[in-house]
Structures are given as structure tokens and as C-alpha cells.
């Protein structure tokens, strides 16, 4: 069976796994976005807390993904739960860091002007600081999504959902029938998803960045 025949014969399974992969990544990145922005907003005014938050997210990041997934089996078992937790944790770092950098990078005189004309702390954050930091935050989300797509493949190690299953099964029976086809299908699927996600983020960025600060 050549590659095209393989794709054709397994198209339903492959489409399902691709959909699973995309959906898992999207949900994890969304969760990381909410958590990360909340964390970033909570700490950005204090340099000490900012350093601490970015630092701990960085430490999480250095744990090899295979090890983290393995460690999560004990409390969470196999399947979806450990995969989602691990992916969300990895997606957190770029989002937290970019939220802090983005908010801290807003021109202080603008914040001063906002308070000077009578905006409350919350209004200043919502109407001035956040919109101005948004392009930087969105870049963090984009990086997080790319990261999650790649690491998502390893979730198959704990029987998680997605295209990782193709890659792991293929590698597991190397030399056997269809092993190369399986690995190739999983890998190419993830690459395609990555391109698709990136295109979507460009569009979202374009639509959500205020016109006055768009390049």
C-alpha cells in the first residue's frame, strides 16, 4: 500500500484524529489564555511578582514533555485528563510572559493621562492598557498554539487523543506494514494543522487589533 492508498483507506480515522488534535489544542490554548492573562494582569504592576510568575512558568517549561505526562498518570490516570493538563501548562508560559511584557510595555504617560482624566484602575486596564498590549499577548497565544500542536502528539504516550496515535503506532512497529505511512500521516497532519492555526491567528490579529496601532 502506498501513502495515498493508506490515506484513502483510513481517511475516516485520520480525519477524526485530526479533528481531535485540533480541538484539544484549541481548548487547551483557550484555557491557558484565560489563566495566563489573569495571572499576567494580577502580577504586572509588581516587578517582583512578575519575575516570579514568568520564572515559575519557565521552570514548568523545562520539564521534558514525556516526563511530565508520565508523572501525571499517577494522579490523573490515562487518556484525556493528563494530556489536557500538560498541554495547558506548556501553553501557559508564552502567554503569561507576553501578557506581562505587553502590559508593562504600555507607555506610562498614557496610563498617567488615563488616570488624570478620571478613569478608574479597572477602566484604565480595560480601555487603555489591555487594548494596547493585545498585539503582544496575541503573539504569545500564537506561539502557545504552535507549541501545543507539537507537544499534543506526545499525548498519545498516555493514550491521549489526536494524531500522536498514528506516530506512536508507526514508530512502534517500525519495519512492519504501513509503519512509515502511519508516522508520515501523523506528522504531516500536525504540520498542516500548524499552518492552518497560524493563518487563523493572523486573521484574528488583523480583526482584533485597533486600527490606530495596526502596522
Amino acid at each position: 500500500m502506498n501513502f495515498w492508498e493508506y490515506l484513502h483507506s483510513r481517511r475516516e480515522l485520520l480525519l477524526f484524529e485530526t479533528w481531535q488534535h485540533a480541538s484539544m489544542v484549541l481548548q487547551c490554548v483557550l484555557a491557558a489564555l484565560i489563566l495566563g492573562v489573569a495571572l499576567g494582569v494580577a502580577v504586572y504592576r509588581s516587578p517582583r511578582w512578575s519575575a516570579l510568575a514568568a520564572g515559575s512558568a519557565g521552570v514548568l517549561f523545562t520539564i521534558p514533555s514525556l516526563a511530565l505526562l508520565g508523572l501525571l498518570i499517577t494522579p490523573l490516570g490515562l487518556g484525556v485528563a493528563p494530556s489536557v493538563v500538560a498541554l495547558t501548562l506548556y501553553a501557559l508560559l508564552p502567554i503569561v510572559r507576553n501578557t506581562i511584557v505587553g502590559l508593562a510595555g504600555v507607555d506610562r504617560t498614557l496610563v498617567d493621562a488615563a488616570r488624570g482624566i478620571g478613569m478608574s484602575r479597572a477602566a484604565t486596564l480595560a480601555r487603555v492598557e489591555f487594548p494596547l498590549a493585545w498585539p503582544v499577548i496575541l503573539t504569545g497565544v500564537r506561539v502557545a498554539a504552535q507549541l501545543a500542536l507539537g507537544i499534543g502528539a506526545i499525548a498519545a504516550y498516555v493514550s491521549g487523543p489526536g494524531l500522536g496515535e498514528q506516530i506512536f503506532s508507526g514508530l512502534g512497529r517500525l519495519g512492519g506494514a504501513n509503519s512509515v505511512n502511519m508516522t508520515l500521516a501523523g506528522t504531516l497532519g500536525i504540520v498542516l494543522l500548524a499552518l492552518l492555526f497560524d493563518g487563523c491567528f493572523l486573521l484574528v490579529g488583523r480583526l482584533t487589533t485597533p486600527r490606530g496601532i495596526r502596522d
Partner: protein
Amino acid sequence: MTDAETGSSGIEMINVTKRFPGLSAPAVDDVTLTFPGGEIVVLLGPSGSGKTTTMRLINRLEEPTSGKIVVAGRDALSLDPTELRRHIGYVIQDAGLFPHMTVAANIGLVPKMLKWDKQRISDRVDELLDLVDLPPATFRDRYPRALSGGQRQRVGVARALAADPPVLLMDEPFGALDPLTREHLQDSLLALQERLRKTIVFVTHDIDEALKIGDRIAVLDKGSRIAQYGTPQEILLNPADDYVEQFLGGTSAMRLLTFGRVADVPLEQVVSARPGDDAAELRATLREDGRCGVVLEDGDRPRRWITADELTGVTGPVGERGSPTAPPIRAHDTLQRALEALIQVDRDRVPVVSASGAYRGTVTLATVQAAVRGMRDEADA
């Protein structure tokens, strides 16, 4: 000072002190200062004198360590700071416009926070853009980055005026602009103030700007110590101490000239004549007078200087004889302008005309000198 004297829109600071944590010397040390309603008071001082901090205490961007502040009859320290600031216009250097909002959205921010309805905000935005000489049709939908520095600062002023606050705080608003634009915006501000009569606190380190803009000037030293508080003339004529004198920089006589008007000083009158007058008669009068005369044409406009020598041997009317005068200066011009004109002409005098262009007299260097002496004598008396 009573409420009647400060006006209901004035500001009072009473024994106000501001200490920043970790600094031994207070940034503002026991300052008591009254800003009369409807006037522009300039806080003038070098950087580090605490002038900006003093201003920021008024809208509580800085909280005073001790003291009392009354803004437009209300105790500022007992109000909610956010609420207080919505009724105090605030203009900063570079305008501080929000780059992600259009000009209209920037100006409409405070009215929106005060919950005005949409139509009222939109009307107000157009009215304000007209007020600061930016045609609404062209400017309301632009983003700040599409504006020049001067235009941005005009929008900044419009934003500060949006909810018609009685008080305006301006922190070196024209500091980042080129000299020409700065001058232009200063003139616009003065024209605006003619109509609006706001209580304006204006912070600057530029002495010329202070003298031009201020109804009163507070010269500040370290810790916001008020070295002198008075009108520009008072400060120029009678510097309170060495510090103020040093700050004025030794050219106070030149600056004084900007406060005198040509109309206010005695002009020197010379013999005036018409082209139709008899030349021999005029020559005799001029000979006796010893100075040159002036020939007036169509509606008393000064046209030519004429001397006795130029009429030697002439019979009949004076006619087109004589040498053209320099462009005349107007009675409402400043003495500085008169001095400028005198330096540039090759005569020792320049004709002065009324607003309609009719001849009023002439100024000479002696006239200007006498005027400055007069101002000083008046101040000493």
C-alpha cells in the same frame, strides 16, 4: 483670601506637604498658594523644583502627606479621586492621546464616563474641534498617529475641555513642540482663555512662556518653595531675591518691553505737511525745528520723511519730495516691536499709526528708554 476673591472656580492649597518614601527632603514643603478663579497661574521653576508634583497634588495623582486643598469650593481630599479628576481638565506634554482611539473617541472619553448620551457627546466633540481650529469633518475620525505634534496637542486641549471643567491643569503642554508651533499654540490658548475664563494651572520651566501666558507667576525653588508670586510685570520689575533674578537671566528690561504698548507712551511729534503745502514755508518751519518732518497723504497716512535741505531752492508745492518712511508700527504694538523696527531702519525714528492707519506720531530710542524708566519708577513708588 475669601471665596469672593478667589471666585467659585479658584483653587487653594493650604500648608500642603508631599513626601516621597525614601527621600529625606519633601518634594513639596508646606506650600500655601491661591489660584484665583478665571486666571492662568504659571508654576515656573527648574526641573526638580517640585512644580509638577505641586500641580499633580491638585487632581490627586499624588496624595498630599499633609495639608488642605480646595478646588472650586470643594474639599478635594474628601472627594473620590476619580470623580474629582473628571471635573478637572488635564493636559500633558505630547498630549497623551490614546493611539488606539480616534480623535473623536479621545475627546469623548470623559463625557462618556459621565454618561452623556451619544448625540450630546458627538455634538460636543464637533464643537470642541471647532474651538481648537481643527475642522471636525477632517479630523474626528483620524487616529493620533496621523496628526502633527501641534494638532495632537490641540486635541489634547479639546479632550481636557470636554466636560467643561472649571479648572484646567497643564503640565508643560507645549514643551515637546518646535518653537513656531509652540508660539502658535500659546496664542491659541490665550485666545481660548479670553472666551472661556478657566482657572488654569500651567507648569513650565520656560521663562518666556511663563511671561507670555501667565496672569500670575509663582517662581518655585527646591521643595516647591515659592520664591515669588506676582504678575509678570511685578516679577520683572522687582525680583524678590537673587534666586528669582538669576532665573530671569539679566534680560528683564528687554522682556519688560513686551508688556508696554506704543499707545501708552508719549509719542514724539514732528512737523507734518501735505504734498500741496508751500515748500518755502515748510522749509522755514523745518529749519527752525531742526528735525525732519513727515509728509502725509490719503487719509493722514505717513508716506515720506522730509528735511529742510531737501527743500532748498524749491518753490511752489512740496509735491513728491522726501525719502519714503519705513512701514509704520501700530499704536497697539508692543514696545518690543517698536524697538525691533527702530533697529532695522536707517532713520532714528519710526512713524506710528492708529488702527485705521492714520498718523499718530513717531517713536525714537529715547521714547522706548523713557518708557522703561517710567515702568521702573512706577514699580519703585
